[in-house]
Each structure stands twice: as structure tokens, then as C-alpha cells.
């Protein structure tokens, strides 16, 4: 596993699904501007994960707390940000957009919510 001159670490989807990611840091977004009256306020933030490999693979994404089934559900929002570029089995690069869309499916397969929640609660508990 190497970092290419363009800054990307190239891996196949199979390899990426085998990388154990560890939680690094999570946080809540500060509200940038006052909301118009009556707008439903949602809590949003970010979470950052990293691999133990050399070079390190970094994946981060934004989340939002959405109401669901009487409780609340932490959901990924938007495409992830990463130094990973997926390649197919013939070593061809994925296109930029497709890379992010497929990395999003990988993120959705990681049980990240518990750790992000714990990290945020610990961090912001007075």
C-alpha cells in the first residue's frame, strides 16, 4: 500500500472493506447563522476515522441526528472525504464521483454511530 504522487492511496473495494477503521475524533457543528422562525433545528457534525495501515487511510463524513421510530438516528449526510481512490480489479481508477459514492457505501457498512455518539457526549458534556 503506497501513497501515489497525486496524494491518493489506491485500493480495491475488497481491500477497503477489509481495513479496520478506528474512530479518531467527532464533533458538533457550531450553528453558523440564526435560523428563520419555525425551522426545525437539527444537530449536525462530523466524524473522522483512520486506519492503522501504513500509509494511513483517512475517511471523514458529516452526520445529522434525525428523528426515527420514536428515537433518534445518526445518519451520514453528504459524501465522505478521504485520501482513498478506489481501483477496480484491473487497477483502473474509479471516476471521482463514483469513488465517493462507493466509499459512502463502505461508510454505511461500518457500525460508526455508537462510537461517534460516545465521543460527542464525552466531549460536550459539561
Amino acid at each position, binding site marked *: 500500500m503506497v501513497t501515489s504522487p497525486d496524494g491518493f492511496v489506491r485500493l480495491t473495494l475488497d481491500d477497503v472493506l477489509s481495513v479496520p477503521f478506528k474512530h479518531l475524533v467527532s464533533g458538533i457543528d457550531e450553528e*453558523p*447563522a440564526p435560523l428563520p422562525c419555525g425551522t426545525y433545528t437539527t444537530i449536525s457534525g462530523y466524524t473522522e476515522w483512520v486506519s492503522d495501515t501504513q500509509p494511513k487511510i483517512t475517511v471523514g463524513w458529516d452526520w445529522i441526528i434525525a428523528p426515527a421510530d420514536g428515537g433518534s438516528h445518526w445518519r451520514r449526510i453528504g459524501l465522505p472525504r478521504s485520501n482513498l481512490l478506489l481501483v477496480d480489479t484491473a487497477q483502473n481508477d474509479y471516476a471521482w464521483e463514483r469513488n465517493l459514492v462507493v466509499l459512502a457505501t463502505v461508510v454505511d457498512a461500518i457500525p460508526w454511530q455508537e462510537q461517534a455518539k460516545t465521543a460527542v457526549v464525552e466531549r460536550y458534556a459539561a
Partner: protein
Amino acid sequence: MQYISGTSTSLAAEVLVGLARFRHRVFVEMLGWELQTRDGLELDQFDRADTVYVAARNEHGAVVGIARLLPTIRPYLLRDVFPQLLHEQPLPCTAAVWELSRFAAVDFDSTRTTPVSQATAQVSSPVAVGLLREAMRVAAELGAQRLITVSPLGVERLLRKAGFRAHRAGPPIVVEGHPVFACWIDLEPQAGVVTH
């Protein structure tokens, strides 16, 4: 919007002073960064004879945006001040990579008084996007294939939202609770601006 670019040897003295004053207003006065200043001007050891500046001026001739470009074959911020952002990776040292720093787009003439966060001040407006594209064009003319920049999470997000092909070079370092990255910006192909 008018763009000017050049080095401290090619730009007029009063232009350079104007840029240093603008930097002081944005980075020292508005954002509260702890930087070396003198007589209301902000300059550091990376403002050299070969440093390239790109600036945006509004219809009144006032500076509304600034970007600083440094070749990675000579000292630059990431290498000399924040090398840990690249973790174990080698620091770029090639004519194909330039560093972008001191990037901001703020119109002090504007009468709108919306509260502005650090990230918002730097990258979210159409002026910022236009300025960044201009900086990318200037860098490309100088032989760059990609830019590297030290950026907080908010900037990486906004770059992506604006349609630039930006991606972090490695995991963040957490500075006062906020993730900071070394971030690559691809110059080729230039992505279209996303309107939303």
C-alpha cells in the same frame, strides 16, 4: 471583479502594502490569528522575493480577496511549520506542486453584517470561488499540477461543496478540538462550480 497577480518584485509597492494591510484586517483583526505584524501590516518569513500573490479587487479598487502561492522547492508553511500534517509521507518538493496559503475573500466595503465564521470568511462566497480558480490558473501557468494547503475541516468541506477536486493528504491533526488537514487541490481537470 478584477484579479491581479505577481511577486513582490513585479507588483507595485502600494499594491503590496494594500495586500499586507488586508491580511492584517482579515487574519489578525477579524480571525484573531497570532501572527507577526508591524504597523498594521501582516507579513511573515514566507513573504519573499519569489512569493506569488493573487488578489481580487472590487469595482472600487478595494482588495476583497487574497491568495499566496509558494513553490514547494523552497521553504513553505506545511514543510517548515506543520510537517506533521503529512504524517510519515514525504513532503512535496517539486515544481509540480505549489502551496496555497493566506487565502481569504472578505469584502469590508459590504454593508451586510452577517456573522462570519473562520471557514466562511475564507471560502464560501462567489468571490472566494472566483479567486481560488484564478489562483489555480496562475499556479498552473507557473507549472503546477496540484496545490497543497493547510486547511481546517470547514475549508475542506467548502472546497468540495464548491466543486473543487480537493482531498485530504492524510489524517487530521486535532488542534484545539478541530481537525486540521494538509489538503490537495487538483488543478486538472478544473471542476465546475456547484450552484445550490
